């Protein structure tokens, strides 16, 4: 495996050097020949020969469906073909300044550059007896329009989501943060896919060491192709074996903007609407953008509800199994009677019952995600029967178990980040085993192991459980409560130390401070 990797890397290097050597020659035919050899068997590449001003041979090379053909035919070609050039040797700079009606042009000099520009959607203009070429940036391809992100819907808040086009995404971000302090650096990752990846940050807020680290980790990636930001995520995260996500992924521009304003760094990739944000702590995975759009009291209440359901989603089935198997004395007597009555005819121990139902629930969830929309209704009906009255009547599971599973299922979906929710859902299974074998002691051991693991995690130098462990009293304002905006005067200390002040203090709205126009106006 190792040998393979080294070998291919070497090959690439040689290939790259080889291409660099090919500076464009003065002979148009030779240039065309080289490019035609490169694009051998690529039927989507168009080589269009024509004459500038009826005298000078020239050629346009582009990929069909990647450039704006209408613009090429109606604007670029006529302006070149009808241009009255008298002599053969064209002043190339004059051509650029006076004739080409394309604003995004670039002069290029090597074959490698030609290939790069053709591949990224430019039309390359080669001219006879010139060792330079033009890349005309008239790319245009089919893309999805901006839609509401389905994975992170909110009741209040912007309804736009990122799309698969990097250019659109960057413009969406720029529309949120208009300051020139918003920087975007691009790079290419993937030997074959040549995917454009952008690192976005706010110069005055993001710490330079974080930025260096992100760039270093991205530069270390040497892979044949990346198709989704999850590829990048897996290649740059701190602990690759952890079930917990160590980056935040989102398709909402407002979430990215909010995180950039707190000094984090966003990584965008062409071809996917998902943007990853680093560094991240576990608590930020439990926050939804909507917490900030609601009133602060409501936001706080929702946050606590989420913490409660976080524990339920991880622990409820295992608690049920443990109490039913080992600690019956903890259940109120009357409830114990009904529970034992419902379990009387069930042939399985609680552990098996719980595992069975949880696995069925996970299967239904997975099927619900994968199935085509037309079949979705069928699955939900069958699912309701499987996890429902029919299962109880068939004598396979007990009624309280159904409730536990259903509640756990709902609880796991209250976690706003899917990646965090699924990590806890998967950890539920070892917890059920521990509960079935060791009772409450097993649950405690399991919780301690999970907490220890989470305490060891770091995301780009930020402890995963911060700001609770290590404790930072002031940062509790965004964990235990959601402080009112007029009190959120500082940025989080772990990422925003470079520029800690967020806003001017003392902004608490107080109508008595100002003139009492409002009151008078109301009276009149």
């Amino acid at each position, binding site marked *: 495996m190792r040998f393979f990797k080294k070998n291919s890397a070497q090959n690439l290097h040689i290939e790259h050097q080889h291409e660099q050597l090919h500076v464009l020659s003065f002979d148009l035919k030779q240039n065309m020949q080289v490019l035609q050899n490169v694009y051998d068997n690529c039927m989507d590449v168009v080589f269009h020969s024509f004459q500038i001003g009826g005298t000078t041979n020239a050629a346009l090379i582009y990929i069909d469906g990647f450039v704006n053909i209408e613009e090429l035919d109606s604007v670029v070609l006529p302006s070149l073909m009808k241009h009255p050039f008298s002599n053969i040797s064209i002043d190339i700079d004059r051509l650029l300044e006076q004739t080409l009606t394309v604003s995004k042009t670039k002069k290029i000099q090597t074959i490698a550059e030609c290939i790069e520009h053709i591949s990224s959607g430019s039309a390359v203009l080669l001219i006879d007896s010139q060792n330079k070429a033009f890349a005309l940036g008239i790319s245009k391809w089919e893309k999805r329009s901006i839609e509401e992100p389905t994975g992170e819907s909110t009741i209040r808040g912007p309804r736009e989501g990122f799309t698969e086009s990097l250019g659109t995404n960057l413009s969406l971000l720029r529309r949120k943060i208009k300051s020139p302090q918003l920087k975007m650096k691009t790079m290419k990752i993937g030997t074959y896919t040549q995917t454009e990846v952008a690192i976005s940050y706010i110069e005055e807020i993001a710490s330079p060491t974080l930025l260096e680290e992100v760039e270093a980790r991205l530069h270390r990636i040497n892979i044949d192709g990346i198709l989704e930001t999850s590829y990048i995520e897996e290649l740059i995260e701190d602990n690759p074996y952890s079930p917990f996500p160590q980056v935040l992924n989102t398709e909402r521009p407002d979430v990215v903007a909010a995180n950039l304003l707190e000094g984090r760094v966003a990584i965008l990739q062409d071809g996917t609407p998902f943007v990853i944000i680093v560094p991240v702590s576990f608590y930020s995975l439990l926050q939804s953008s909507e917490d900030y759009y609601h009133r602060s009291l409501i936001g706080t209440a929702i946050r606590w509800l989420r913490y409660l359901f976080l524990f339920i989603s991880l622990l409820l089935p295992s608690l049920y199994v443990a109490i039913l198997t080992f600690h019956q004395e903890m259940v109120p007597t009357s409830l114990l009677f009904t529970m034992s009555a419902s379990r009387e005819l069930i042939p399985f121990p609680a552990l098996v019952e719980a595992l069975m139902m949880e696995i069925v629930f996970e299967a239904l969830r997975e099927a619900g995600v994968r199935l085509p929309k037309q079949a979705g209704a069928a699955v939900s009906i069958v699912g309701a029967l499987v996890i429902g009255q029919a299962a109880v009547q068939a004598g396979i599971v007990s009624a309280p178990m159904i409730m536990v599973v259903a509640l756990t299922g709902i609880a796991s979906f209250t976690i706003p980040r899917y990646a965090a929710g699924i990590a806890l859902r998967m950890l539920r299974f070892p917890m059920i085993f521990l509960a079935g074998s060791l009772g409450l002691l097993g649950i405690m051991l399991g919780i*301690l*192991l999970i907490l*220890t693991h989470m*305490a060891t995690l770091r995301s780009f130098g930020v402890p995963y*459980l911060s700001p609770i462990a*290590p*404790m930072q009293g002031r940062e509790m304002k965004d964990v235990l409560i959601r402080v009112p905006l007029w009190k959120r005067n500082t940025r989080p200390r772990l990422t925003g130390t470079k520029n800690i002040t967020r806003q001017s203090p003392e902004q608490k709205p107080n109508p008595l401070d100002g003139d009492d126009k409002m009151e008078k106006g109301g009276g009149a």
Partner: protein
Amino acid sequence: MEKGKISAVQMGIIMHPAITATAILLVPAITAHDAKQDMWISPFWASLVGFLTVYIAVQLHNRYPQKTVIEYSEQIVGKFLGKIVSFIFLFFYLHVTGIIVREYGEFIVGNFFVRTPLIFVMGSMIFVCAFAVRGGVEIIGRLSELIVPIVMTIILFLLFC
């Protein structure tokens, strides 16, 4: 040796549960045996010893800053005796850890898992502890910050409700 750094608060929080467990599980039974209804006075007397210990520790630290007990004990009582003192200290920690684990095991087995072998209860806890130690002292500090407040809240809740 891994070079983790923990804050003073973290250090305090780490030490707290080690004392609390013994104080809640073992000490009341022993003192109640002799003191009976006057047991409530015993913590006041006991705390005097505690304050003396802390006073000595602080004074020693002020006199030999940036040094560990093992380092300055050699300076105070000489090389040979110092080595013996250091050995006693290290042995003491081992001993105390053993006592705490045993306390825990006896408590669990005595109250809940009557038929479970002691070695299993203690072994599983030691495994979890080893997992935390592998992460280093920073991890233990963070874990204490996370867990101790919750445990203290529960204890206070039980005391006053």
